[in-house]
C-alpha cells in the first residue's frame, strides 16, 4: 500500500512491521513524531509491544540493553543531545553484542542551541561500536528499519545498528512511501532467535562481564573483526531485501553515474538527492561527474570506496559536521581509505548544512565547478565552507 507520509512516520511504519517486543524512548525534536506514532500503534493494538515511557535517553538505552540481554527485540529512537545523553550506554550495548536497533534523527548540537538538521550528533558516536547507516529518503528509512534488525541479529554480526536520517529534511518531509505487507516482512525478518547467552531462570548467568588486562584486548579485537566482516552480511541482506521487495540499495554504497566520471562527489544522507539532481544537469552539459552515496560509515567500506574512486581526478566530500581543529569527519575517513591506493586522487572537503542551513543546487554546482577546476590542475582550498554569510 502506498501512503503519503513523513520520514518520521515511515520509521514508525518500519518499526511496526519489525515487531519489537519493547520500545523505550524519550521524545525529542525532530524524532518526536516517530515515537508518538509508535505509542499510538501500541495503544490501538496495531503493534503488540511494550512501550516504556522512560524519563531520559540514558534510561531509554539502559532499558533497551535489559530487553536485548534477555533475548527480546528492542527499539529506541533519539536525536542530538538525546543521543549524547545516552552515549554512556552505547558501548555497553555494542560490547555485549546486543542487536538493538535505534533511529537517530540527525540534528545539530548546542551551543548555540538549534533543533535543525546536521550530522554532528552521530559523528560523535562513530567509535561507539554501533553500525551506522544513513538514508536518503523516507522509503529507505522504512526499509532500513526492517533490514537493520536482520543485520544486527545475524549470528556473525550481533552488533547494534543506528539508522540515521536527516532532521526535518527527511523527518518532516512528506512523500510517497510503499508500506510492505506484514506477511512479506515476517518472511524476510523471522522472530529473534533466542541464544545461549540470554538470561533464563533455569540457567542463571552473569551479564555485563568484566575483562581485565588479561582478556580485554581480545574481546575488543574480535568485536572489531566482526564489525569489519559484517559488510558481507550487509550486502547479502540488502540483496535479499531487493529480491523480496523490489528495492535494492546497493549495499555499503551507491555509485551514481560514476563509471567514467573524472570528478566524484561523496555524500552521506539526504544531500545525495540534491547532488544527483545537479549531477544529471552537468551530465546533460557533457561534464563527466558522478555522486558516490556512502550508506554506511561503520563499518567503513574501504575497498569498495577505493574501487569506485581509484581512477577519478578529483574527489569532493560533503561534511555536515566539523571535527573542530581538523576537518570534516567523513573527509578524514575517505582520505584514510584512499591512502591504500598507489596513485591517490586529489580530495577536497566541503563543509556545509550546519544547523539546518540549506545546501542549494547552486552550492552543489559550485562544488562540482571547484572539483573540475582542481582536476584541471588548478589550486583550490583543501577545506571549504559552503554558503557562509561571513568572512572566514
Amino acid at each position, binding site marked *: 500500500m502506498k501512503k*503519503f507520509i513523513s520520514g518520521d512516520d515511515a520509521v514508525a511504519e518500519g518499526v511496526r512491521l519489525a515487531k519489537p517486543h519493547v520500545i523505550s524512548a524519550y521524545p525529542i525534536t525532530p524524532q518526536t513524531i516517530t515515537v508518538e506514532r509508535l505509542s499510538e500503534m501500541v495503544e490501538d493494538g496495531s503493534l503488540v509491544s511494550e512501550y516504556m515511557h522512560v524519563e531520559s535517553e540514558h534510561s531509554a538505552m539502559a532499558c533497551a540493553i535489559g530487553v536485548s540481554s534477555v533475548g527480546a527485540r528492542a527499539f529506541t529512537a533519539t536525536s542530538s543531545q538525546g543521543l549524547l545523553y545516552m552515549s554512556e550506554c552505547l558501548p555497553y550495548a555494542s560490547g555485549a553484542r546486543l542487536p538493538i536497533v535505534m533511529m537517530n534523527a540527525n540534528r545539530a548540537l548546542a551551543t548555540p542551541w538549534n533543533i535543525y538538521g546536521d550530522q554532528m550528533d552521530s559523528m560523535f558516536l562513530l567509535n561507539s561500536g554501533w553500525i551506522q547507516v544513513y538514508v536518503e529518503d523516507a522509503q529507505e528509512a522504512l526499509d532500513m528499519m526492517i533490514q537493520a534488525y536482520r543485520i544486527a541479529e545475524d549470528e556473525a554480526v550481533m552488533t547494534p545498528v543506528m539508522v540515521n536520517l536527516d532532521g526535518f529534511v527527511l523527518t518532516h518531509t*512528506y512523500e510517497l512511501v510503499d508500506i510492505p505487507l506484514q506477511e512479506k516482512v515476517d518472511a524476510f525478518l523471522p522472530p529473534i532467535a533466542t541464544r545461549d547467552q540470554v538470561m533464563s531462570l533455569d540457567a542463571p548467568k552473569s551479564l555485563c562481564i568484566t575483562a581485565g588486562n588479561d582478556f580485554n584486548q581480545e574481546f575488543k579485537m574480535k568485536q572489531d573483526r566482526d564489525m569489519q566482516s559484517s559488510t558481507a552480511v550487509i550486502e547479502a541482506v540488502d540483496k535479499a531485501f531487493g529480491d523480496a521487495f523490489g528495492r535494492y540499495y546497493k549495499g555499503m554504497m551507491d555509485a551514481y553515474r560514476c563509471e567514467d566520471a573524472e570528478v566524484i562527489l561523496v555524500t552521506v544522507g539526504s544531500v545525495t538527492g540534491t547532488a544527483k539532481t545537479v549531477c544529471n544537469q552537468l551530465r546533460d552539459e557533457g561534464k563527466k561527474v558522478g555522486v558516490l552515496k556512502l550508506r554506511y560509515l561503520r563499518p567503513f567500506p574501504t575497498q569498495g570506496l577505493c574501487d569506485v574512486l581509484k581512477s577519478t581526478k578529483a574527489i569532493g566530500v560533503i561534511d555536515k559536521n566539523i571535527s573542530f581543529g581538523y576537518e570534516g569527519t567523513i573527509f578524514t575517513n575517505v582520505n584514510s581509505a584512499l591512502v591504500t591506493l598507489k596513485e591517490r586522487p586529489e580530495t577536497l572537503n566541503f563543509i556545509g548544512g550546519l544547523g539546518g542551513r540549506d545546501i542549494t*543546487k547552486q552550492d552543489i554546482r559550485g562544488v562540482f565547478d571547484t572539483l573540475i577546476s582542481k582536476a584541471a590542475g588548478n589550486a583550490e582550498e583543501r577545506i571549504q565552507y559552503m554558503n557562509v554569510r561571513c568572512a572566514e
Partner: protein
Amino acid sequence: MVEVRWHGRGGQGSFTIARLLGMAASVYGGQFAQAFPSFGPERRGAPVLGFTRIDSKKILDRSEVDSCDYVVVLDETLWGPAVVSGLKKDTVIIINTAVPEQYREQVDNPVVAIDATSLAIEYLGRPITNTAMLGALVAVGDFVSLEHCKEAIAESMKASVGEKNIKLIEAAYKVVKEAYHG
C-alpha cells in the same frame, strides 16, 4: 516539475493543504510529490510556509524551494517581500482577497483572486480557507485533478468535515474557472 509555495499563519492549515495536494498528486494521481513546511517550531498566528513539489518522476532534490510556479496566499495580511520573492516571470500568485487590484498594481505576475474567506464561512461556518485555496489552485493549474483532491480530502478528514470541504473545494474551483477561463 511544478513547485508551489503556500503562505499562511500557524493554525490556518497551510501545511495541511500542501500535504493534501501532494497526496492527491501521488497517491491518487500516480505522480510523485514532496510536501514540507518551513521547518522549525510551530506557533499559532505566526507566518508559516508550506511547499509542494510535483513531478512525473521520483523527486531527488532535497534543497529548499527557491523559485516556484505558484504562490498561494491564504491570508492577505501576509502580502509583502516574502510573498513576492522567488517569483519566475510566469509565476501565478493566487490570493485570498475581495479587493485584488491593490496587489495587481505591485507585481508584473498574474494575480488570481478569490474571496475564499466568504466561501469558507458559507460552506464551513468558519474562515478556514485552505481547501478553497486548493480549489482555486487546481482551477488555475491543470497539474492535479479536482477529483484527486476530493479523494485526498475524503481520506484525510472525518466524514462530516470532509463532506463540507468537498462542497467548498467544488465551489471555489467553479468560481475561479468561470472568472478566469470564461
